[in-house]
Each structure stands twice: as structure tokens, then as C-alpha cells.
């Protein structure tokens, strides 16, 4: 059954809440700035509660189903994170408050900077970037600033393997650089010879995702880093897949100069609702002066009887602010809580289970779904969602049919280097029983693809809406917040 829009439920004069009395003197807006009408729905409280409860029940999310969306790490967000983020001292702080009055928040940010630097093997961390893609842009702008600061002005190219995240080329473009794609070798690694021929004094650096989008650890990562450094370039690491390696290997130890962390992936925090994300960057010693500011610094240790004193500082050659205020602070609190709750051994264990779960699924599926890069994987793997003897069935049909079995679809049609890709990432938070049910669903769907393909072509059958017309949706951009006819 479909749920009407909240505007359909609106009736003039209905009211859901009574606003509390204003506890500060009202300040009128200047003449002409205050609007006289505003088209908002007028709805009673119970109708609002039922409306949004029903909407949440129509949704597929991590709280109701396994969500194996490769690359996105849709893992469980422990509820203690939410408790921490709602503590009044943290939740009610205003970003313009005098730093003297928010020393606790600054202490939390300082600790998180230190922990992330330790986990990644870096000399400095900025918590500012609002999400992964902004972390990437931050990293690339710092790399560019580093070269320009040294008077090295002819570097304009960014090398990007074709197994990198799709946002990497977009980021390099946005920073005004020319993208040069590096092919993969047959084992899914960077083609080292191709890389070496492209490394010269016009290269800003390399953007590498490790483990890459095939879920594979780069087997000669140290040679890759050495080749880029040898021509004067810097190495950017896309940390989106850090959840496979936390506690196992530190990107800084591998020679990476910059890395962004996706707190909303690796360190839990809510993700399925579209964020907010948080993409802190860690840098090697030669880039710390360029970090976006302000950073939190411990300016004074006041002995054992008094807490240390924190303040905000901006590095000397900072590329400037990347975001207003202090990053997505609520997400920082959740990541802090997650790291504290797990500790070093817990974080390492999470990486191990993420890798174990992915390999369990891979081993249980690879006789039915073709694995173009057949290696032990890290936290995710990519299969082909197509069979020569089941013509007409595509990855999209498999993804839609999974909905009927109660699972969110894996990432599909990415990475582009795999034909009809299905990219599966179970994360460490699923039990073996859930993984077995997922295997059963995918194996059953593979049978159906051969015996009753129409069942897949018409899927989903159990969702509120069956197959949507994606072509019409892409071509006719009609977004209507208020339907033409009000229902009775």
C-alpha cells in the first residue's frame, strides 16, 4: 500500500505541537525580509507519527535487513553512539561558543585527531571535511599546495588506477588537474609497468584506493608508492575501504602522504539515511603545515591535578577552511564512542570479521557467480551478475529479485571494469545465520535466472512498488511535492 505525501494529509488549522514560550527577547526581521505565507503541511501529531512510522516500514535499512552495498560499508551503528551524541554537553554546544566554555568538546576532538593519526600512521589529522568526497578534495588541494609552495609549478596530472573509487577522478577534475587513468593487471593490481612509464615531473601524484574497489589488497603497494615518490609525486589514499585493514596495516607506514577516513563507514555512525558523513584527512609530516584549519591543539598541560587546556590553531600554510565551524561534530562524537567502545583489539577484530565474512560469502557463491578476479578478498568482492546460458538476465534483475528475499541489493554496475558487476560487502556485523540466508537467496536466484527468468525481470514482487521505469525517471525530471488532486 502506498503512503500519501504529508501534504495530502494536511488540513487547514491542524496543529501537531504548541511551541514553547520564547526564552530570549524576540528580534524582528528587517522590513521586507519576513514572508507572509509559507506552504507547510498542517497535520496533527498522531497523523505525523503514523505517517513517518509507515514510511520507515516501507524502507529497507540496516535496522531491518542485511545491506550488502559494496564500497559503502553499511554496518550496524551501535546504539551507544547515539546515547553519546545526545549528551547535552555535546549536543547543545554552540559552534560560536567561546572555546573556554567547550573544553570537553575540544578534548574529544583532540583525542579523535590523535587516534586517527595513530590508526593511519600519520603525523597530523584534520577533522573538518564533511564527507569522503570533501576529504578527497582536501587531500588533493594540499598535494597541489605542497608542490606550488616549493615552486614546482609544472605538475598538473593526477594518476588514478581504473580500480579506484569513482569519486577520485571527479575530485582531481574539481581541483583543476588532468586525470590520467592507470590500467589494472590480470590479478586486479595496478599495472606497475604502465604506472612507471607515466611517472614524470608533471605528476602531482597518485590517488589509490587500497583495498581497491574489487576488494583486493594491492599486492605491490610499496613499489607503487616508490614509483610515484621517485618522480616527485605524492600518494593519496582513498580510505573508504579502511574497515578491512584497521589494526592490520597503517597507510602512513606504506608511504601514503594523505588519506581520508570515512568515519561513517569504518567507524560506524549512521549512514543509510544519507549521512551526514565525515571525512577527516590524515597527512605525513611534509603536509602537516597545509592541513585545513582550525585544528584542536593541546596548548597547556596543567599537571595531574588540572585537566589539560585546549584551543584552536591554524597551520602556517593551511589551505584554509573546508567547512564552516568544526566538521560534522555529531558524527565525530559517534566515531569517538565507537573507537572507545572497541579499543585497539576490538577494531582489529572488526577488520578480521569483515574480511572473514566477505570471504565466506565469496567461497559459498563462486561456483554459481563468476568471479573475474579470483583471489582471497578483503572486506568485499565483485561477481558478474550475468550468465551466457541465461540470456536477457542482468545484474539489475538479480538486485531487484533480492528485495523479494528480504535483502537490500548489492552495489551494481560498479566498478566499471567488471561486466554486469555486483559488488558485495557484508561487513563484520552480520551473523553467520544471516550470511547463510543471503547465500541461499543468491543461489536460488541463480537457479531462477535459468528456469524462470521472467520472475527476475519483473522483480520486485513483494515491494510496495514493483519495477520502476528508470528511463522515464531519468528523462522526465518531474519532482512534485504537492500532488494535483487532494485525496478525500
Amino acid at each position, binding site marked *: 500500500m502506498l503512503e500519501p505525501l504529508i501534504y495530502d494529509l494536511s488540513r487547514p488549522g491542524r496543529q501537531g505541537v504548541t511551541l514553547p514560550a520564547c526564552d530570549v527577547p524576540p528580534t524582528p526581521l528587517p522590513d521586507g525580509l519576513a514572508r507572509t505565507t509559507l506552504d507547510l503541511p498542517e497535520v496533527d501529531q498522531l497523523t505525523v507519527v503514523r505517517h513517518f512510522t509507515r514510511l520507515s516500514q516501507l524502507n529497507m535499512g540496516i535496522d531491518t535487513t542485511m545491506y550488502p552495498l559494496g564500497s559503502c560499508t553499511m554496518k550496524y551503528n551501535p546504539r551507544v553512539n547515539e546515547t553519546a551524541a545526545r549528551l547535552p554537553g555535546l549536543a547543545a554546544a554552540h559552534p560560536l561558543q567561546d572555546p573556554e566554555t567547550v573544553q570537553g568538546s575540544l578534548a574529544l576532538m583532540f583525542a579523535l585527531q590523535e587516534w586517527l593519526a595513530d590508526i593511519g600512521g600519520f603525523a597530523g589529522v584534520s577533522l573538518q571535511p564533511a564527507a569522503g568526497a570533501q576529504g578527497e578534495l582536501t587531500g588533493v588541494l594540499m598535494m597541489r599546495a605542497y608542490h606550488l609552495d616549493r615552486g614546482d609549478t609544472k605538475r598538473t596530472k593526477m594518476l588514478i588506477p581504473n580500480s579506484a573509487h569513482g569519486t577520485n577522478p571527479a575530485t582531481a577534475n574539481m581541483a583543476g588537474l588532468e586525470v590520467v587513468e592507470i590500467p589494472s593487471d590480470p590479478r586486479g593490481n595496478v599495472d606497475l609497468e604502465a604506472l612507471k612509464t607515466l611517472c614524470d615531473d608533471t605528476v602531482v601524484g597518485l590517488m589509490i584506493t587500497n583495498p581497491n574497489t574489487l576488494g583486493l589488497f594491492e599486492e605491490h603497494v610499496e613499489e607503487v608508492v616508490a614509483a610515484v615518490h621517485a618522480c616527485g609525486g605524492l600518494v593519496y589514499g582513498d580510505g573508504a575501504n579502511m574497515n578491512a585493514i584497521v589494526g592490520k596495516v597503517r597507510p602512513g607506514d606504506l608511504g601514503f602522504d594523505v588519506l581520508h577516513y570515512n568515519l561513517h563507514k569504518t567507524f560506524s555512525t549512521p549512514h543509510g539515511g544519507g549521512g551526514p558523513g565525515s571525512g577527516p584527512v590524515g597527512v605525513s609530516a611534509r603536509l602537516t603545515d597545509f592541513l585545513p584549519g582550525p585544528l584542536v591543539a593541546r596548548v597547556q598541560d596543567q599537571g595531574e591535578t588540572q585537566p589539560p587546556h585546549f584551543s584552536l590553531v591554524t597551520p602556517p600554510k593551511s589551505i584554509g577552511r573546508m567547512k564552516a565551524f568544526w566538521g560534522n561534530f555529531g558524527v565525530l562524537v559517534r566515531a569517538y564512542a565507537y573507537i572507545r567502545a572497541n579499543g585497539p583489539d576490538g577494531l582489529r577484530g572488526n577488520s578480521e570479521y569483515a574480511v572473514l565474512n566477505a570471504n565466506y560469502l565469496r567461497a559459498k557463491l563462486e561456483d554459481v557467480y563468476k568471479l*573475474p578476479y579470483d583471489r582471497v578478498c578483503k572486506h568485499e568482492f565483485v561477481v558478474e551478475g550475468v550468465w551466457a546460458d541465461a540470456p536477457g538476465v542482468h545484474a539489475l534483475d538479480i538486485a531487484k529479485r533480492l528485495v523479494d528475499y528480504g535483502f537490500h541489493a548489492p552495489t551494481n*554496475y560498479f566498478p*566499471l*571494469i567488471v*561486466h554486469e558487476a555486483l559488488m558485495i560487502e557484508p561487513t563484520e556485523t552480520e551473523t553467520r545465520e544471516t550470511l547463510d540466508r543471503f547465500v541461499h537467496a543468491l543461489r536460488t536466484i541463480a537457479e531462477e535466472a535459468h528456469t524462470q527468468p521472467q520472475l527476475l525481470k519483473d522483480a520486485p514482487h513483494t515491494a510496495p512498488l514493483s519495477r520502476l521505469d528508470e*528511463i522515464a525517471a*531519468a*528523462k522526465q525530471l518531474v519532482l512534485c511535492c504537492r500532488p494535483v488532486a487532494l485525496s478525500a
Partner: protein
Amino acid sequence: MNVPTDLKYAKSDEWIRVEGEVATIGISDYAQDALSDIVYVDLPQVGASYTAGQPFGSVESVKAQSDVYLPVGGTVTAVNEALGQTPELVNSDPFGAGWLVKIQLTDAAPLAGLMDAAAYTAFCAGRAH
């Protein structure tokens, strides 16, 4: 897969038909099939000039968006206006009504490095499937 024998093909899946100083460019049947249903085609302004290998536009399907590259150097003399309303022509008739741009050749030398129909067919067959 349809691969007309009177055309030349680039590794990035564009085809080119050269008639004197003028050439027509589109994407191959293989490319339109791999992209699936095309919903938007972004084309350059008439008069824009490109060197060989430069992107001149992009093709967006329900699955992905791909840049399209000019296999030779040239100046755009016409773009396929029909694709504005009916981008699906690239799917239904990639070598005919689904053409992308016409150009005046300024650098024809890269033509020698393009594939003929037989070589392109082998190239497509050899890609990881």
C-alpha cells in the same frame, strides 16, 4: 553485435566515418549495449575545436555516464540536435540516426592508428567478460 565495415573504430568505442575533409562520429553498437538505456547526451557547441583524444561530450545511461572522445583533431560543424529529445536513438541506431557530431578535420593523422571492423570486433571479443 553490429560492426559496419566502412567505419574506423577507437579503443574508447567511438566510430568515425570520413568523407573528404568532413567526418561523422558516434559510439559503437558494443558501447550502446554496454551502457544500456541512454537517457541524456551532452554535446559540444558548433565551432568548438578539439585535438585528437580530447573528450567532446558525454553519454549518460541509467547505469553510467561516459565521456566520448574525438578520435582525430577537428572543429565541430554540426551536432545531432535530435538527441536532445530522443537520446534513445543512440541505442536504436548507433551508426545512423544516433550519430553525435560532424567535424571539419584539422588533424587526420590519428586515423592511421584506428581499428577497422575486423580489428575492433576482435578487440571487443577480447575484453574481460
